[in-house]
């Protein structure tokens, strides 16, 4: 009995210290795991937004580049959020409407070049399309911001395209 009591009391003291250590370790592990989970979630969201923004921006700049290079004239006045071109004799336009860029060729109906997951925003205090003229050659500078609506993540884009078809 006395042996058992001695053994018990000895066992209890150890348990308290152990408990404290366990608690401390658990807390540390929890903090690390929660931090990691949070980061993973952020990365996923970041990645999805990034991908959405990139694919929209890339498609948009590619289409604008192709159209401007092939155009025989740049119509309308600039700077503007609408780009009006004549391509292969057809009136062709890129226009900003409700955060999306729409492409219209001839009398066809407008086709959205960007999806509704993102919003195309003109640069602050400016316009998407700017015309830069050197002699008889014209360049269209394209500047815009893309916002991923789900998490308000944004990226800015800027490039220029020379009108070639003379």
């Amino acid at each position: 009995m006395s042996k058992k009591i001695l053994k018990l009391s000895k066992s209890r003291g150890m348990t308290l210290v152990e408990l404290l250590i366990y608690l401390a370790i658990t807390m540390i592990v929890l903090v690390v795991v929660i931090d990691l989970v949070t980061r993973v979630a952020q990365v996923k969201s970041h990645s999805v937004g990034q991908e959405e923004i990139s694919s929209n921006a890339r498609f948009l700049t590619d289409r604008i580049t192709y159209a401007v290079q092939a155009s025989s004239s740049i119509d309308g006045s600039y700077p503007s959020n609408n780009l009006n071109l004549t391509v292969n004799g057809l009136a062709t336009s890129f226009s900003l409407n409700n955060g999306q860029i729409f492409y219209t060729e001839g009398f066809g109906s407008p086709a959205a070049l960007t999806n509704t997951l993102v919003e195309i925003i003109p640069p602050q205090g400016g316009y998407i399309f700017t015309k830069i003229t050197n002699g008889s050659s014209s360049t269209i500078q394209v500047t815009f911001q893309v916002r991923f609506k789900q998490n308000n993540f944004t990226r800015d884009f800027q490039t220029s395209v020379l009108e070639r078809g003379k």
Partner: protein
Amino acid sequence: MKKAQILVETIIGVGVVSLVLSAIVPLFLIGIRGSSESWKADTARLLAQESMEAAKSLKEENWNNLYQQNKGNANPYHLVNNAGTWVLAAGEETVSINNLDFKRKIIIDNVSRTISGAGTPAWQFGEIETSYNPTDDDPSTLKITADVSYENSPGIAVMDYFTRNKNSLWEQTDWSGHNYSSISTIFVPAGDIDTSTVGALKLGKIPGAVAHYGNEFVTDSVTTIYRLNSPDYRVSMRFTAQQSGNVNQLRIYIAAQQRGNQVFYKYGLQGNSGGNPDGSYISSPATANFSSTGWQTVNLGNPVSITAGSVYHLVIQYDSGSAPAANRYIDICSTLPDNLTIPLSGANDTNSDTLAYYGPPLAWHDRTQQPLYVLGFDDGSYEGNPYDARASRAIRSARFEGETFTLTDARSVSGVGLYVASSDDPLIHPAADNLYVTLVDLTDGVVLTDPNEIFVDPLSLTTSFDWIEHSFSSTKTLPAGHQFRLYFSSPGSSPSRNYLILNMSNPDASPYNDLNWDGINALTTRSTDSGATFTESQFIDLSYYLLVPGDQYAPNGELTSSTLDTGNALGAGYNRISWALVGALPTNTTVKMQLAANNDNATWQFGGPGGSITSWYTLSAGENLYTGLASNRYLRYKIRLETADPTVTPTVDWVRINWAY
């Protein structure tokens, strides 16, 4: 005891979890960074595209926007939208996008292209060279590199070649009606250049002048260059190469030798250095010992490539065997005078001479003799001087003598010239008859000269050979392709008092017969039966010529073109010049060009490749122009025609200059 084990296990467990986490966390970090890098690369690409497109816009506006900038990596530029216009600004720019700084610049580099020349296959002409070579600069091509870098990344560089657009060709083929700025009038008052015919710019004819057609080569005596009786002595025969090719055979004439079989001499070609042999054999010389006199053939084991128009020396010197000495030598034959002429064509060769190297002190000496040599080429052709003998021939009683020839070009002739002497002193023992000349068109069977047309009377001569010219009573037209016989006779002259005419000869064999005057088109002709029958000899030629009236072209003439106004106030680019001839360029004639450009339409400083006032463009097929002409608005060319043979002129059909706005 068991509980303590749990604590240890827990600590170990936590340690393991930490290890696993430390391995996983960097993976997520890489994922985050990778995702972040991709938008940076996209942005850099778009920014580089913008630079390139803006640079292209500047190029479209005016080539000089880019061309006149400083070139190379040390001179970066960037493009700025200045109130709706792209302008070039020095240095690199920083573009801040999404809170990241992108460093952006463009580099402008010169571009050179391969040009036509030895060793360049035709399909490679005009290719862009991998490394820039200023001498082949193409002023109408630039290399543009748009570079965008960010953070520690090298970023991206987009490279493109820009070429000048609005390429134009300035062609002139009609200079008549004073469609030029000026022509020289040094030789011909009406102009040394004849512009009267569209598509035929040629040298002007000197009024009243007379040219020659015939064998003007003469040999007064046969001699030797210098006896090679010392190991130190050398002899050289200097000549201007008449054709380009590989020489694999040398023929020389040994006039005398003693114990020639004991001495080996080197035979080979050397380049020219200040008139003397340059001292090193091209390829390697052949070695030979000759123990007989006369023409000898030396085959070159290693053919020597020579270029038409360049000066070479055929150099002979001791090689091995017994040393040359007073009783052990060879003598290389030559003739006098030095005609400075190629026998076959009558073309000038002002470099023709023999030289000998002797002393003391040892040095090269001009011998002022006619070199006697034949070069054999690996294609079976030959060139050189084969005339190793001369003879004077008596014209008397039934013995007529002259030259039979076939003309490749039609000629009008007004008279004839000939070396002639009296066999005895005409003041004491004159010939009993005149010397008569007869010219027959053998093709038509017509005698062109007057009956008994006197060439010279006996009292006009001396006992030495004099050059006598006689004018026909009227100008004779000799059609191309016809064969003619020109002969001299003096039926009343006797064996002791007669006329001597001069001829040269060579071995009656190939290739010598092909290398004497006019090759197989000209033969001596002899009759011993008062002209009833004639015998022709290929290996002998008379020293004579026919006078060709009014056909003497000015030796040279220059035309300065009208002005090309490119209309580009900032200056145009000039790329290439070429021209075409009517027919082939005649032997002994030259066509060459210089160009001048300016912005004031007044200061004309003409120059050739490299801009030097003494250099000329000489390749009719086309040559890249001196880059210093670029960036000037006005251009003129100067064309210079030259002939060393007054009976022929080069004729230019058109001149083209390729330029870019």
